[in-house]
């Protein structure tokens, strides 16, 4: 899709993720054994043949840069177009420390101007899904919309602590949008992905950033609901909004269902990520592994059930991991038992320890900690 520009917004809130987002922006939160959240958005864009992707950097983006490097893994290290890192202004006009997506877009207005693409897809990276943006753009053109918001129909709003509901008329036009409504007005949940003409995006940025507005969607698009032709595009299929520890844990565990695994990682294309050249997984004699997602570089001699192991985790004999997520290079002493636990990267658990959390409230051990 040569005519579509991708913009990834990293300014989504991360408070709900507790320790997992302390040192990293939402897009850099590790997920699914070998990925970081941004991999899904980036790969979806590239799989839709988008060849120009701008990433709006906010704060805590160090781990993200280490992960995406020059965009090579997504084939975005290009002579023409490719991946562009768009840093926020060091000081915003209003003098606030952390910039918003509107001030960041304004700061990088020149990039928007010189991009050759006529249309832009603007997406956060807190939603994991496998989506075809080409189909969404076709819908946008067919409806002659000014803005197309992408939503997913859901039955379990109760699980969502925060969401944006979209109400549509019969012709697909959006008539109402509400943030975290107390009463359910619609089961259509906005995925923080939208399509619009690049020119309109620049106009919105110019107008609203000059008026000290901060957020593109809530402060520049929602107020224009009646004058702009805003349409809703339904994305069907598996969707995981990662906005709390509970949703992080829940959507991680969903990956253990073969249908979800298949859809999320293969549907419209592969999800690419940084390659680490780890060896295949070794399952030794006596190991017991069931219903688990295991990344390369692991060696397993103990028990792993209903769990996710990231790259390079060694599970010695006598170690028992149940209903847990163990990130890269965890060192687990002999006889360690984990249940309903999330171990961040490079955690050390000394021999004999037992850690038990609750399914609705898993224990999180932060990066580099020793227990």
């Amino acid at each position, binding site marked *: 899709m040569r005519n579509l520009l991708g913009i990834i917004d990293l300014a989504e809130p991360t408070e709900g993720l507790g320790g997992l987002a302390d040192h990293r922006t939402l897009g850099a939160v590790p997920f699914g054994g070998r990925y970081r959240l941004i991999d899904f958005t980036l790969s979806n864009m590239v799989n839709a043949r988008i060849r120009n992707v701008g990433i709006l950097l906010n704060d805590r983006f160090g781990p993200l840069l280490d992960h995406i490097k020059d965009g090579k893994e997504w084939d975005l290290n290009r002579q023409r177009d490719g991946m562009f890192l768009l840093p926020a202004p060091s000081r915003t006009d209003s003098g606030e420390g952390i910039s918003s997506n509107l001030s960041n877009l304004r700061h990088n207005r020149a990039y928007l101007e010189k991009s050759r693409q006529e249309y832009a897809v603007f997406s956060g990276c807190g939603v994991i899904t496998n989506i075809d943006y080409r189909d969404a753009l076709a819908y946008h053109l067919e409806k002659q919309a000014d803005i197309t918001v992408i939503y997913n129909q859901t039955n379990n709003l109760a699980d969502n602590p925060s969401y944006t509901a979209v109400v549509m008329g019969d012709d697909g036009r959006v008539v109402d949008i509400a943030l975290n409504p107390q009463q359910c007005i619609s089961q259509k949940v906005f995925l923080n992905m939208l399509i619009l003409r690049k020119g309109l995006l620049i106009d919105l940025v110019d107008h609203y950033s000059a008026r000290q507005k901060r957020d593109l969607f809530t402060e520049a698009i929602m107020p224009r609901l009646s004058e702009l032709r805003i349409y809703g595009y339904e994305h069907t299929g598996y969707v995981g909004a990662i906005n709390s520890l509970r949703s992080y844990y829940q959507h991680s565990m969903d990956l253990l269902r073969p249908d979800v695994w298949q859809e999320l990682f293969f549907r419209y294309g592969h999800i690419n990520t940084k390659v680490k050249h780890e060896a295949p997984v070794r399952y030794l004699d006596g190991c017991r592994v*069931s219903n688990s997602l295991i990344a390369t570089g692991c060696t397993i001699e103990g028990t792993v059930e209903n769990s996710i192991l990231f790259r390079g985790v060694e599970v010695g004999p006598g170690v028992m991991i149940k209903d847990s997520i163990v990130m890269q290079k965890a060192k687990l002493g002999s006889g360690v038992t984990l249940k309903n636990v999330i171990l961040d990267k490079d955690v050390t658990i000394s021999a004999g320890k037992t850690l038990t959390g609750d399914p609705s409230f898993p224990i999180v051990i932060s990066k580099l900690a020793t227990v």
Partner: protein
Amino acid sequence: MQKKEVVAMLLAGGQGSRLGILTKKLAKPAVPFGGKYRIIDFTLSNCSNSGIESVGVLTQYQPLTLNSYIGIGSAWDLDRNTGGVSVLPPYVRDQGAEWYKGTANAVYQNMDFIAQHDPEYVLILSGDHIYKMDYSKMISYHKGKGAAVTIAVIPVPWEETHRFGVMKTDDDGRIIEFQEKPKIAKSNLASMGVYVFNWKELQLYLEADEADPNSSNDFGKNVIPAMLQGGEPMYAYAFREYWKDVGTIDSLWEANMDLIAKQPELRLNDSKWKIFSLNQTLPPQLVGPGADLQSTLLGDGCLILGKVHHSVIFTGTRIEEGAEVVDSVVMPGVHVGKGAVVHKAIIGENTIVEAGARIGVPAKPGEQVEISNESGITVIEDNVTVRSSMRIVRGTVLSVAAWPEFPEERIS
């Protein structure tokens, strides 16, 4: 072009005819190995890890898979501004064109490529061995000895010496006698096919070899004996770690099985000496609720719902519920259907084993079958479908060419 001290020439043009149907459509170095790799990954990673930045890969037989796999060498960190990896097929020149006649001729035909880098030393490598070796140590040894050529050697069992070129050395490691595939060997130090040559001497001997109409233009048969006769200082460099020539069905199967030992001799998980490979990013493997995995090496993107014991399963393979895979090597993208049985087999890439099919079963009493593999390894070609009604007897080598004549009595 920038001068390089060492240029490596990696011989990757061999057919590997002893691997039979596994190399029908690809060169031996491109054969999948070890759950995610191809054989050539080991040599290319050794180059990269040894700090060698200019590598010529000489291709001739079925090069397409190999060419696209190597690409510009990024996976091995060999995409360099100067040097890097170059794929070198035979080409037409003003005197006409000819195929590579032998290992020495292949290098002879690429002397211009070597000269571009103006090296001191040329490292000659084979693309069909599994080992981790620091070539920089061997080059230091070569320099220290003041040798014209240094040959890496490994002790092999005496009963296998007839398969190798063997060296007799003096106490200092200098080679005093060389026997190519001897009936009665005087030494059990076998050449690994890894040579360090001084570029000047190599040029002279390659030119002389080319001028000799009786030569078969082979390093082991011709160039090395000629240098020995010429009184050149030649040294053996002893290598004591894991090294395996995977040129036969048996050795390919065995080398894969070596990786699933509790303490494998060749550690793949070595952060100081990574084996790089071209990855197609697949999700982590999903091990289902009823899966049973023991002594197994398993690549990315696999979905395992059945039983897998003592096997090496490559990337993107699916093993359904009730299926049983034992003592086998299952190459990338294979699908083993429900209740299918695979015993001591090598299954080629993207082959489908339908539900209930049985591979590697014993022959029934009195059953007439054509056994191709004496060790009882059953081999199934890539990209074929083994139908659910099929029962394939242990030791059969099955290619799609033989499919129409596939005898009815073996189908139950």
